[in-house]
């Protein structure tokens, strides 16, 4: 059966995505630990397909203000990655990295923005490298675009752009333990269905 949207994924395909999520999160934790010069533990990431409304609710409701980092995928795989940082995680990054407490994430200076963009870059590259090294596919990513706003408004961007792909996204819930506190971040992956089919076929998974 052809895959038309993410509802059509079977349990084996979901397992593959989960495993890619695991490897990506592992890579990401290693890179983050290097950047922040601190020990980072990771929990097993939760990977599932959700529709946009579920994503927005999961991320604290439409009006919750978050940091959104948008990365586009090009090359053999096309699609979009949206990395969502809650205020607590953004604060953890800046305080661990250069000792600055963020009182209000709507008032980030250039340094904060570039630090958070770098985190987005690292996270996106970690997942993409996991996929590329397992499949042999060539995947390029763009520099992250940055936005701090209501999560509903941020998620409208992929919802609109991928309206023809369907209402579902691949949602990865990562838990990191940095020094003494546990923080969460979320990677949202919206591949074109052709790209996802190619990815599965490279891994020998039936589509």
């Amino acid at each position, binding site marked *: 059966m052809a895959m038309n949207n993410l509802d059509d994924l079977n349990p084996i395909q979901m397992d593959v995505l989960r495993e890619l999520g695991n490897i990506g999160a592992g890579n990401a934790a290693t890179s983050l630990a290097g950047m922040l010069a601190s020990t980072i533990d990771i929990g097993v990431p939760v990977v599932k397909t959700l529709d946009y*409304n579920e994503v927005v609710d999961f991320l604290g409701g439409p*009006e919750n203000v978050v940091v959104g980092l948008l990365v586009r995928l090009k090359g053999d795989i096309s699609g979009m990655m949206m990395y969502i940082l809650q205020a607590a995680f953004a604060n953890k990054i800046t305080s661990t990295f250069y000792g600055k407490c963020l009182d209000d994430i709507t008032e980030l200076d250039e340094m904060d923005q570039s630090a958070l963009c770098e985190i987005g870059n690292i996270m996106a590259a970690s997942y993409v490298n996991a996929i590329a090294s397992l499949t042999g596919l060539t995947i390029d990513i763009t520099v992250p675009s940055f936005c701090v*706003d*209501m999560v*509903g*408004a941020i998620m*409208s*961007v992929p*919802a609109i752009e991928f309206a023809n792909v369907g209402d579902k996204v691949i949602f990865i819930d990562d838990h990191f333990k940095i020094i003494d506190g546990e923080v969460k971040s979320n990677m949202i992956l919206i591949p074109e269905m052709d790209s996802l089919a190619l990815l599965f076929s490279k891994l020998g998974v039936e589509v």
Partner: protein
Amino acid sequence: MSKTITVGISDLNIALAPDILATYALGSCVGICLYDCRSKIAGMAHIMLPWSADSRNSCDNSRRFADTGIAELANMMQSRGADFRCVTAKIAGGAQMFATTSAVFNIGERNVDAVKKVLNKFKIPIVAEETGKNFGRTVFFDAATGEMQIKSATKQTVLV
């Protein structure tokens, strides 16, 4: 006691005074508020995309698009007794959330443009507009007064 009726993404609804219509966190989507000040019938639509004809998916939700969404809202208001000779429109949203060098499109701008064309076709005058720029907006529309309130994460609340 007035109640608040929430309009989700790709959805629409109507309200009578003293109720309030609300839609949360418009990004590139556009919120269209229609109002008949005589009968105090208010309508709100939250559209995602400009034209239904551009959809690749034939079973798509018609409330998703500016043209079919506004048409359905107008019908709904008319069947409740709204007189379209005195209906006016207020619109909000259509932001560009991410500054991007990609030439993909500025969908927010295209949405606003389509909404204006459709309203013009229905001869509904736009009396207030809070569109474009780069931030999300939450919109409340009061059926008692026809006032539209726009809230955002960083800007002051606007009442039009």
